[in-house]
């Protein structure tokens, strides 16, 4: 049996400790060990973005990060976005724009959009499309997703 390591990290502002095998990805740790199942597995090789999380302020595919690598780091996931009594503006914009159908890609898109707007609060449509190109959606044709992100940018401008 594979040996497990003890890891201490910060997830959505809370200090978290877990045991994991070296081969377990951050995505597996989040989902299977910590039961934070908002990040999804779509491809497990960095090509769909459904597992997007923010690691030390930077957007990453959690399927391409080892759980053991997060020692001492800070992870933001979709579960940490909303306030107890209200949604994050990006979450609201996705709802108001009907920017989701099946919803499996939605947590990844929202995390990706959050990282975009933190680094570029006023992106053009092209900049939005370039940034979100690593997130696949098969339902919407992206139209309403791009519009939702444009709406958030407009509202904060």
């Amino acid at each position: 049996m594979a040996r497990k390591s003890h890891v201490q990290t910060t997830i959505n502002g809370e200090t978290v400790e877990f045991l994991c095998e070296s081969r377990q990805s951050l995505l597996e740790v989040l989902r299977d060990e910590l039961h934070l199942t908002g990040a999804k597995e779509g491809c497990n090789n960095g090509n769909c973005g459904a597992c997007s999380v923010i690691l030390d302020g930077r957007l990453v595919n959690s399927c391409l990060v080892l759980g053991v690598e997060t020692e001492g780091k800070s992870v933001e996931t979709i579960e940490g976005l909303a306030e107890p009594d209200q949604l994050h503006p990006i979450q609201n914009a996705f709802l108001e724009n009907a920017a989701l159908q099946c919803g499996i890609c939605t947590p990844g898109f929202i995390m990706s959009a959050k990282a975009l707007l933190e680094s570029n609060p006023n992106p053009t449509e092209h900049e939005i499309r370039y940034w979100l190109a690593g997130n696949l959606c098969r339902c919407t044709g992206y139209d309403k997703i791009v519009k939702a992100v444009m709406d958030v940018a407009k509202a904060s401008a």
Partner: protein
Amino acid sequence: MDEKKEYKVIGTRPIRHDGVDKVTGRALYGADVQMAGLLHGRVLRSPHAHARIISIDTSRAEAYPGVKGVVTAADLPEAEDRIADLGEGAVNLKYLCDNILASDKALYKGHAVAAVAATSPHIAEEACQLIDVEYEVLEPVLEVRQAMESDAPLLHDSIRTTSMGETADEPSNVASHIQHKLGDPDKGFEEADITVERDFVTGTVHQGYIEPHNATAQFNQDGHLTIWCSTQGAFTVREQVAEILQYPVSKIKVIPMEIGGGFGGKISVYIKPVAALLAKKTGKPVKVLMSRTDVFEGTGPTPASYIRVKMGATNDGKITAAEAYLAFEAGAYPGSPVGPGAMCIFAPYSIENVVIDGYDVVVNKPKTAPYRAPGAPNAAFGSESVLDEIAEKLGIDPLEIRLLNAAKEGDRRADGPVHPRIGFVETVEAAKSHPHYTAPNGKKHHGRGVASGYWFNIGLESSVTINVNADGTINLIEGSTDIGGTRSSIAMQAAEVLGIPAESVNPSVVDTNSVGYTAVTGGSRTTYATGYAAYEAAQDVKRQMIGRAAKLWEVEEANVQFADGVFSSINGKEEEISFRDLCSHLGQTGGPIVGSGTVNPGGAGGAYATHLVDVAVDEETGKVEILRYTAIQDAGRAIHPSYVEGQIQGGAVQGIGWALNEEYIYNDEGAMTNASFLDYRMPTCLDLPMIDAVIIEVPNPGHPYGVRGVGEVPIVPPLPAIANAIYDAIGVRMTELPMSPDRLLKAMGKI
């Protein structure tokens, strides 16, 4: 149905009922199931496209630490060669079982051969590699025309071609031949001033849903089997698992979790019976997940096809005859969508003389599954390209030639049915007057294309129960899994009947023990048929509520009317009570109210779409850029216009992917070489412009609110529309899909 009626809820855009769960990551999908003692299952798949299985030795895997159980086809009940009806038509049970776990032969690379349950997914995966399978590798056949050759390698000794009631004597890869004929095609072609005939080839493409298949099963000691999974239809999972395991449906409960896309690909079962077998063997709950590669190699894509279309027309553009030859790859077992392809191919047009031949052919690829208007896009790629060529050669505007020949109410489809009120003409008229069509289109290597498409839509069974709450809201119980906002489009129809806001309905998608039989979310049927059931259930509630008002006021029921959410008494006593207030009197007037509605409606009403596309072709690289896209569609009545637009936009973009880059690429041994999201190139948002979705409303007489299914038809026009735009840009007719850069370079003579 009242065409002029103004609605209060229908046509508005409320926030979807499951929205907050889905933007917060709280919505639970199939893979999110967690429970104590859960084991993890993985499937071993054939590395060969065609091989006889000589032996399977699982002993090394069983001995591996952490492994709790291994299953093979030997664990399935004996499947005699019999036919089971699973709601989607007849299915040969041996084929069904063999596709779950191969028994005598592996018929495609990725065919499931064995499965392991272990304490971690990694251990299960490692243990799969310790299963020793001895194969006798056979020559594969990978292309439909090759498979139809008389000397082709045979997949099944048991298949004899059935052709219009006759069964052949010799085994063949051609499972069936169908033909539809109308009028006298020979005479029609004689009357033509111009005839165009072309061959078309389309590749194998996948639905590409982002969520891989998943299944968690638990077998109780009393024999009750529970399956948590993502599926388009919990009841069809129950039926298929019951048939495959030869187990009574009464002992199977299927709990549909949220589903991460399906598009037709999550109707057939793959790992659900496997999870059940592993759960039975281990006595523990077992979760089986597919990897993305498993999804590409081991689940049903939509078929590659070879299509020949011939159309004749007079000089003034009237089509006199049409002929089509459709040969579809079924994959490893019979059952391609050649039937629907044949039904749809000339359906936008009123043509007197038609002959359509269709062939269902097995090849060493995964058994195909439905994908959004299955068969129709392949067929339309042929017919709509040929029509474009006729229009161009006759110097007629491509939309005008469509109007000139457009099918209307009362016209007969080649396969028999007579069109009810349909909205094809309206979509073409809308295209003609759309600013996109009148915008300039003259730049070098830019082109504009148009194409239309048809999908017949289906009805089938749906059940809805409504429980009335004392605070004036209702809980709506349904069996249609919600893939794209149908909780809301169904809830809104009930709300409209009861005169309450959409937000006063709490819709729930429940398990197979908790609602009446409901067919799959597919065939563009959910808002139509389950919405119809919700309408009926709400009518039932309304009738009962009228009885309660009558009781409260001590008047005859006939003297109570209901309008705009208010009950009032007519004739005599002047009483009024709102729906909401009356709900608080249910206890004193007889107890709770439960309304129910069940339907199996026949009037689904066909859907038509006409698309406009502008492209730019890089003549040095062969790459096609989509510059502008407009998709016009008759929705009958758009219940929630945002989600109707979403269906149109999503369907159009899947069509764009199919047209330009998506295909299964095979090597000579029959292995798919691009089984990942890296190399199976679905469009990203950077590959697309905004998609302008235009909703036309020609109400469907077969639904109380005029709803037509909207989900499927938008994938039909993009393939030919883009081909026609490429022709307009560079003067080359592309007849092979996808129209990828290398194929364009070849067609332009650059390589």
